[in-house]
């Protein structure tokens, strides 16, 4: 495993879970620390409905898989000292409490770096550890609103609209993982550890990069255009989403070398079914400039494509796209993703056993595939509350059984 030998202490709530999961997927030992009795995040739904006894909702099960689980009350003096002993033996600490909380309870970077100068401490918060919005509240919707991404998504006659995916925290935690590993590489080169401040807001600001480009260059505000992209210049927003006979597809028309081959193939197909007019047939896509084409030209092109797509199914269109290299893909729902042939042929899905449920679920598998050796490991379900207490406290940390029992008795573990 790529990160074999590295250990991460994971104190995060849902804002940071994905960070530890990425590190765990790549082979690090990730120890998820929960307060005794378990994290509140386990309660977050949706739940596995006919399995009420499972310790945790599906978000918990998703983003804590692969981790080991221990309980520890880091607010108690003895819990604190036990945590510090763990820090001595670890490489990365990742946390997502409110800014300043770790300092408040005496476990800030100043303290931890004295115990272990090489430690990487990564703090994930909504707006960073400093700055004017430091103490602001947020959830997925409001964070996506600050990012500038929400403003440009949706139909123009209704309010801006979100993707129905809780995702803002994944963006932040993903960058936390990448940055933590950069710092670890630096530490391996220099011996120097450091503190990393992740502001989810700052991470999300990248999502509207293309609209920022229009603003800084032309003081033009890109607006939401429903099924089209408004950030592509030229006479018309670039149409992307289309209705077809049995659902929707995604198709972009590019001129020049990028789109020429596929566009010619598509127009030939339309022509063979009598659905391309003289203008469409005459376009030399190699020389066609997206930005210079007029609105009338685009309207003519788009209306013919629109009519044509309605006469075919998603499957027919995608199969032809694969064969003829047309830039067209189906708009899949989540059930259709599970049926995708490409994912199946790459053995993407991983069966994860949930013994407590007496059932298995097909989880998304390795997020990156390696050669000559596999680089991810997946398949271990998220830990039960305190499941790995003995393994971590006795074997990894080296507490005596008596010390361990004492911590248990005092409610610290």
């Amino acid at each position, binding site marked *: 495993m790529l990160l074999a030998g590295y250990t991460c202490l994971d104190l995060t709530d849902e804002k940071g879970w994905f960070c530890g999961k990425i590190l765990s997927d790549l082979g690090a030992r990730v120890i998820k620390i929960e307060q005794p009795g378990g994290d509140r995040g386990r309660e977050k739904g949706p739940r596995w409905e006919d399995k009420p006894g499972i310790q945790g909702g599906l978000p918990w099960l998703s983003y804590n898989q692969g981790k080991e689980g221990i309980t520890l009350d880091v607010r108690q003096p003895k819990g604190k000292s036990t945590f510090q002993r763990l820090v001595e033996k670890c490489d990365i600490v990742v946390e997502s409490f409110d800014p300043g909380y770790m300092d408040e309870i005496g476990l800030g970077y100043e303290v931890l770096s004295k115990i272990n100068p090489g430690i990487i401490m990564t703090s994930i918060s909504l707006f960073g550890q400093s700055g004017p919005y430091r103490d602001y509240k947020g959830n997925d919707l409001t964070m996506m609103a600050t990012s500038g991404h929400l403003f440009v998504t949706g139909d123009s006659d209704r309010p801006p609209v979100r993707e129905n995916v809780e995702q803002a925290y994944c963006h932040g935690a993903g960058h936390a993982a990448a940055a933590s590993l950069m710092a670890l590489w630096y530490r391996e080169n220099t011996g120097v550890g450091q503190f*990393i401040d992740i502001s989810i807001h700052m991470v999300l600001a990248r999502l509207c990069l293309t609209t920022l480009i229009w603003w800084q260059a032309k003081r033009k505000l890109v607006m939401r255009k429903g099924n089209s992209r408004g950030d592509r210049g030229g006479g018309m927003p670039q149409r992307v989403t289309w209705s077809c006979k049995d659902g929707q597809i995604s198709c972009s028309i590019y001129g020049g070398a990028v789109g020429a081959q596929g566009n010619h193939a598509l127009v030939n197909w339309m022509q063979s079914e009598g659905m391309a007019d003289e203008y469409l047939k005459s376009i030399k896509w190699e020389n066609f400039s997206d930005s210079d084409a007029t609105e009338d030209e685009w309207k003519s092109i788009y209306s013919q494509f629109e009519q044509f797509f309605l006469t075919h199914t998603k499957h027919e269109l995608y199969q032809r796209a694969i064969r003829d290299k047309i830039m067209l893909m189906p708009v899949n729902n989540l059930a259709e993703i599970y049926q995708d042939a490409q994912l199946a042929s790459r053995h993407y899905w991983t069966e994860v056993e949930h013994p407590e449920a007496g059932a298995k679920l097909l989880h998304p598998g390795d997020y990156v595939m390696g050669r000559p050796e596999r680089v991810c490991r997946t398949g271990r379900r998220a830990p039960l509350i305190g499941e790995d207490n003995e393994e971590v406290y006795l074997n990894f940390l080296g507490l005596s059984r008596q010390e361990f029992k004492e911590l248990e008795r005092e409610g610290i573990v």
Partner: protein
Amino acid sequence: MSALSKKGRVSQEEAKSPTQIPEHVLQGLKVLEMAQAGVGPMQARALAMEGATVLRIESSKQLDMVRGLGPFNNLPSGHVERSIWYPIHHPCKYSLRLNLKHPKAMAVMTPLIKWADLIVESFRPGAIEGLGLSYEEVRKIKPDIIMLSTSNLGHTGVVSTFRGTGNNLVGMSGWTELTGWPDRPAVQPHSSYTDWLIPPLGLSAIMAALLNRRRTGKGTYLDLSQLEASLHYMLPLLLDYQANGRIATRAGNRNPYAAPQGVYQCQGDERWCAIAVETDEEWRKLCEVMGRHELADAPEFRSFPMRKRNEDKLDQLLQEWTKQYKAEVVMEKLQNAGIAASVVQNAQDVFEDPELRSKGYFIEIDDTLRGRISYDINPFTFSKTRKKVERAAYFGEHTQQVCMDIIKMSEQEYASLQEDGVFN
């Protein structure tokens, strides 16, 4: 350019002296970038802005598609540096002009592969193999090389040669279906949305592979399918289908955890505020802020299940209140009461965002050819190492210097290759 020759891997001896500690987190890392469009270049960009030496290879026979994307600066139509989009993807990199299809290209590539720790490529699957630069070929030259290929659907499998962009992958990977209003067809999540999901995952894999090489001396090939990686952002929804047979779809601005939750119109044109109320306490405070104390204990709203049931009414109530104020005022009133609320920021708001500005997120650089450009830094702050921000190189700007400084060509060798057209 002297920086190029100075940079090497930090040896143990150097590490011992604190005065010689590198100022950038990835200083000394050497990267070859043969990538186009978004996902590949963005990962190399993140490395370059942390101090890695990134050589970007591009051919005039196949210019990056982003060079043709507006907005454009004042340079004439057809000018290779005309796009303002392009430099934003490529700050801090060195630019090498090289025709990889030229029979003598390997005279340049072989020493560069020996020099590099990492290759990042994002051509259509099959293309890099066609150039004789597959991982298997490259590792013959440099056995411990790390190479990342990123593509829409991966480099193996039944449709691996599929030619696509993030634009359409957004549909394939489920995002489009989940975006919009339940009573209408799905809409496009803005931009090539999957492009923004992949870089942190790719970067994590790259760094893990580098750490692994340090420990084991072994290189790695990373086949990063953007479809496969993007699905990790929606794990709970995929498991919801597996566990409960539920197929998630679009739900406007609602989610199961909050009520009221929505985007509400405020004073002014296209000014909106997003608001989310999760707990009873937050609900009470909201009523206070709105001056509607009587609603706090109204039977139809006082518990979360009741608020969830009466969401349409709540939306109306909030809408009537918010439209009297500016979005910024609504946000401030609610945040002061401890309620999640945010202006739905447009590009100007983000560009002027006080939080981002306070952290130096945008750095302006004057560029004699392209004009002034604001570059955004990597969105993570290290306590001990600095960011690097330099303007994007011009096309082929460092070709000769790379050949001299890194490859150690003689002037005659360089001139001869140039004559042969290798650098076209």
